[in-house]
């Protein structure tokens, strides 16, 4: 397996694969963060999570089109506005969905799963009717394209670096909101003991709605970031939903650290394996390993003790 490569080549390969893995890791973390908040904090399975992501991607695409058409001078900075809009759009849709659909089903988690799957079908068809079935791509501003040479054999893409920076920023923001802000304390109180949280005056319904909205909003940002790496199509969300769920479950629901650790493990394992095996076998082996580990340790890598 290693015989054909010199030591320097191998080092470069590992560095490049590790970098590719880091980009995948960033995308996984972004996707999984929203899900970890919704699933971990609320116990709701949102199968339409991928479609919220795609909503963010389409919002980004629309913003790009508008800027190209009317504000070409500001094109360099459109991405930041696009991400903000993606967050707001996905978050607003999320809160609407929570209000109309999810809140009636808190006691029936398996039924939530089916209902949100139905929602995902409707959203997919809506995207297809509005934006067409073809994939759309986003042109990046000049400064985000190209790559940086580190050494002769190693180079890194700038958009990859941007995604990583973005992921770090959002993760820190979420950690701050959940663990240090007043609202985050309320969320955690509701998770740990819903009845008592209500008894001390926390409006649990409102907390639920904003939590769901926050999770969906982050999915929107993830979709926005995703347009930098891949193209967007109406059904793209479905491709990632299983991976994302496994990241969250593997990490241990309700644990942000767990989510990040598991996203790191899974993405690195997959991108390293991908170099030596075919892409599909790498995916199969990684998924099988996760399922296997989950059978041995059903609660995931990191767990939080919760009074049920």
């Amino acid at each position, binding site marked *: 397996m290693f015989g054909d490569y010199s030591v320097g080549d191998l080092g470069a390969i590992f560095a490049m694969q590790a970098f590719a893995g880091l980009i995948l890791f960033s995308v996984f973390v972004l996707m999984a963060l929203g899900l970890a908040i919704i699933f971990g904090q609320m116990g709701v399975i949102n199968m339409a999570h991928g479609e919220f992501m795609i909503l963010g991607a389409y919002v980004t695409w629309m913003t790009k089109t508008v800027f190209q058409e009317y504000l070409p001078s500001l094109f360099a900075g459109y991405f930041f506005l696009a991400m903000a809009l993606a967050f707001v759009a996905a978050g607003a849709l999320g809160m609407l969905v929570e209000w109309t659909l999810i809140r009636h089903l808190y006691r029936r988690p*398996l039924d939530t799963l*089916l*209902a949100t799957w139905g929602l995902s079908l409707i959203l997919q*068809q809506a995207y297809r009717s509005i934006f067409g079935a073809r994939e759309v791509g986003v042109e990046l501003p000049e400064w985000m394209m190209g790559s940086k040479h580190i050494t002769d054999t190693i180079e890194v893409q700038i958009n990859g670096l941007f995604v990583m920076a973005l992921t770090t920023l959002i993760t820190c923001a979420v950690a701050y909101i959940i663990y240090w802000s007043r609202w985050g304390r309320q969320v955690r109180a509701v998770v740990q003991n819903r009845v008592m949280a209500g008894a001390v005056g926390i409006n649990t319904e409102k907390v639920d709605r904003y939590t769901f909205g926050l999770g969906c909003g982050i999915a929107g940002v993830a979709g926005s970031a995703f347009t930098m790496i891949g193209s967007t199509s109406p059904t793209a969300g479905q491709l990632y939903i299983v991976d994302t769920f496994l990241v969250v479950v593997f990490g241990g629901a309700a644990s942000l650290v767990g989510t990040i650790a598991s996203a790191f493990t899974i993405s690195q394992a997959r991108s390293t394996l991908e170099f030596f095996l075919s892409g599909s076998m790498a995916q*199969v082996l990684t998924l099988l390993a996760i399922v296997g580990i989950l059978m041995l340790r059903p609660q995931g890598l990191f767990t939080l003790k919760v009074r049920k």
Partner: protein
Amino acid sequence: MIKTPRFLKRGDLMAMVALAVLLVVILPMTLDVFRLNLVAKYLTYAFVAIGLVLCWGMGGILSLGQGVFFGLGGYCMAMFLKLEASSVANTKIQSTPGIPDFMDWNQITQLPLFWQPFHSLTFALIAVVVVPTAFALLVGTAMFKRRVGGVYFAIITQALAAILTILIVGQQGYTGGINGITDLRTLKGWDIRSDHAKLILYFVEVACLFACIVVAILIRNSKLGRILVAMREKEDRVRFSGYNVANFKIFAFCAAAAFASIGGALFTLEVGFMSPSFVGIVPSIEMVIYTAVGGRLSIFGAVYGTLLVNFAKTSLSESFPQLWLFGLGALFIAVVLAFPNGLAGIWRDYVQVHLVRLIFRRRPPPGAVPGWTDDSVADAAAAE
């Protein structure tokens, strides 16, 4: 006083006769062979739906990976048929005659070891049921013994469906890849593509379906069925009463897998090919919606639900391809929010009550409606 459960209650018998009249008399007489073959295709999903009634409706175990078992059963059948279709005489033009065409295209020169036993029909027929059930046993044992359940189980079974699809698509030389195993012709020299054969296969399938229905009813009406329901309602109490909850769950999951595998094998025979598009996440979750629409507690409802959703799918996607996904999505939401007991619930609450009153000129005492022993799912969930 505790009534001893009579096997095959009167209500079940009546429902069975009604279904038999529909499937054996009305449909074959009114539909042409093409449409009847479509019905046959739909009915293969009914096997899966019946399995889901046992596993999900009664046992409360939602499996989103039934496509895995459907597909495994179907592939076992397809492997036998493919080997028969690729005899040396039929595949003279290949660089290696006598192996399936897709292997030849992928530069494989020898039949892989795991394909060898599928030369025998007996082995193939046994494998159709045993392979998926054994896989279900493995997965079920690993999960339920460690008390993985509910949502986690659903996600992991869904991941399994994804894994198997990727594996089949990726290993093109051994499985036929994304196209699946196609161009199946004969079963022991009997051409399965002729109209006559399709008609016979249809009746064979209906017979199998009734066999499965009877088995499912026997399970539901036995003590086993009651334990399954009890487990769904309050798992801990069943455990405290001294039952080994995991074993009962494994049984329900394996039974559902076995039913699905029979459906898959019949699907291969009826349709003439098998491909990964019947294994993955989307078909697996569609199978759940058939059961949900029919009524997750009703064995007969599952059959009607399957037929109805598939009819709607075919006719809607023929004329309004855009509307179909909206319709299916709305169906998911409506069934969950408004009709958790599906068609069977509507039938019981609105039609049967009036029917009974009309015939007997009196109101049936509550709970005396034949064939229904369980409380509605919504009540059960609210009581948690």
